[in-house]
């Protein structure tokens, strides 16, 4: 490869990186910017001096940030566990059952379609439904919403994996005396840890970041961090500093997690696409 080609590639990668990362740089810089600088003309991209006042403010023990953080953790963890468990079993059944009339393909496509509809269309009906069930402003309301949003994704992702799972291994397990449950738990699950982990990580991200449904059904007690951020837009103006600080706090665990699991993620996502 000659120098020009390499330079060209490096430039393209650099541009892509800047486009992807610039918002986070601005966000992080803003979280360190003094409050009075946000609206004054002539302040540059870099703050005149660095302050941690916004972080101190959002982590004020008298404030509610920790409660929202706990809400987010509870909702993300529970949604992820339920979605992956349910999705994995559904995908396995879909891959293995011989349904008539190509029903499994129809169901598979439906799962795919569900991923793409505009979520706002169900936000109001879902609100009414939750009011009916007296579940408004509970963790459960948000969890149900997040599970229903992520299960189709999990099914769709794991379906490809199951379809590639060697049949003979399962046949061997059948001959060895395993029924469907033991076959799934003792043979299939241990061998699909990478795919399950990838599905879990992506589900967790979706739930952690989700705003629309959470803000619709959980405005107060069960409020999650993303919903809290929108609360910095007040009738007295936008609290840019606090908003930036809390946004940074939300992004950091996700970024760290992605960094540590990227190997798994890449492997899990390409399962089925490429055979090793």
């Amino acid at each position, binding site marked *: 490869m000659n120098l020009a080609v390499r330079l060209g590639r490096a430039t393209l990668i650099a541009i892509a990186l800047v486009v992807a990362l610039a918002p986070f740089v601005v966000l992080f810089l803003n979280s360190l910017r003094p409050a009075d600088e946000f609206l004054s003309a002539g302040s540059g991209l870099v703050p005149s001096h660095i302050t941690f006042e916004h972080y101190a403010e959002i982590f004020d023990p008298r404030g509610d940030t920790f409660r929202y953080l706990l809400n987010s953790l509870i909702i993300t963890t529970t949604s992820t566990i339920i979605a992956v468990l349910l999705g994995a079993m559904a995908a396995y059944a879909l891959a293995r059952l011989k349904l008539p009339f190509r029903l499994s393909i129809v169901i598979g496509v439906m799962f795919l379609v569900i991923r793409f509809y505009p979520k706002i269309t169900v936000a109001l009906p879902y609100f009414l439904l939750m009011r009916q069930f007296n579940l408004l402003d509970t963790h459960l309301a948000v969890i149900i919403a997040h599970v229903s949003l992520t299960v189709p994704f999990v099914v769709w992702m794991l379906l490809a994996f199951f379809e590639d799972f*060697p049949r*003979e*291994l399962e*046949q*061997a*397990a*059948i*001959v*060895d*005396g*395993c*029924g469907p449950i*033991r076959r799934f738990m*003792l*043979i299939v699950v*241990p*061998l699909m840890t990478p795919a399950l982990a990838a599905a879990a990580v992506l589900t967790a991200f979706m739930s952690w970041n989700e705003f629309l449904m959470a803000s619709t059904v959980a405005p107060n007690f069960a409020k999650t961090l993303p919903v809290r951020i929108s609360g910095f837009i007040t009738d007295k103006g936008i609290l840019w500093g606090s908003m930036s600080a809390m946004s940074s706090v939300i992004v950091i665990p996700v970024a760290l997690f992605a960094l540590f699991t990227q190997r798994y993620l890449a492997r899990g996502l390409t399962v089925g696409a490429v055979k090793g």
Partner: protein
Amino acid sequence: MSSVSLSSIEKKYGEVSAVRDLDLEIRDGEFMSLLGPSGCGKTTTLNMIAGLELPTSGTIRIGDRDVTRLTAMHRDIAMVFQSYALYPHMTVERNMGFALMVRGHRPDEIARRVARASEMLSLGDYLGRYPRQLSGGQRQRVALGRALVREPEVFLLDEPLSNLDAVLRVQTRAELSGLFKSLGTTAVYVTHDQAEAMTMSDRIAVFSHGRLQQVGEPLEIYRAPANRFVASFVGSPPMTFLDAVLGEGGEIVSGDLRLSAPVALAGARPGQPIVVGIRPEDVRLADEGLPAIVDVIEHLGSLQVVHLTAAGERIVAQLPEDARLRRGDAVRVRLEPAQLYLFDADAGASIYTPGRNDRSPSHTETSK
């Protein structure tokens, strides 16, 4: 130990019949090979015996139990898969003991049986390893060991040697043969390799296009094939076939080639089209006989395979290496009339074979 009996088995996938009209009796303690080209229904038959697939119609019995509708886990069978299907996340020891664990055997019983099987297969040093840390031959032995610890009524083996290299395959073939002789357990062995079937089996069942063609002992299959397919599939180098007609006075006429017929063929009328089969080892060089030209010589070391042209027909001969031949040589060959195979030209059923002169098949079944 048990016999396996298949009666009127039919297996359809949609409109396609994978196995048709199958009646097969595998005796207690017998090593039976199911032999045939790919897609002939032999693996489907094995899977039906295993219970991994259910027949569309018909009955399967193992011993005196009707197992037709039983799933694989409730049949007392153990299976060795072509890909071995070892559990990648378990050590050799756990792979071998898994079935016993699932079936609720006591740990000391499992340990005892695994130890015995691993000793029989010289796997003792590898019990702690994972399948990915083993060579192909070792994996094959683990797959075998997993079946052995079960001490089942019937062993089912699906081309267990096909993933080994040639040298190891021949060596393992002999070991397997000895092992099953000493166990004395009924075994059903699927293979497309006629050498494996010939060397290991008590009896062979030859399949083609979903139909059983013939069941018989190896030499019976070889010397008294029921039809042209069996004759062509078994034997290496393969049999030469010549289109011919019956001439006047017990002659077989193929183009310019005239051979004397082995017997006065009862009921045969002159002019009837037939197919003549010639085993390569039955072709001999002689001072008197058919003039032939040497086309191609393949040296095998102890033997040579010689492709000849005689009276416009190609004939393959297997000759000892001491016959010094060169391409283009003119030779004379002798075909013993009694060693010829004669087949019906249309149906392919055999009319005469060296191994069976009467035409009433005893326990062989011909295709319909």
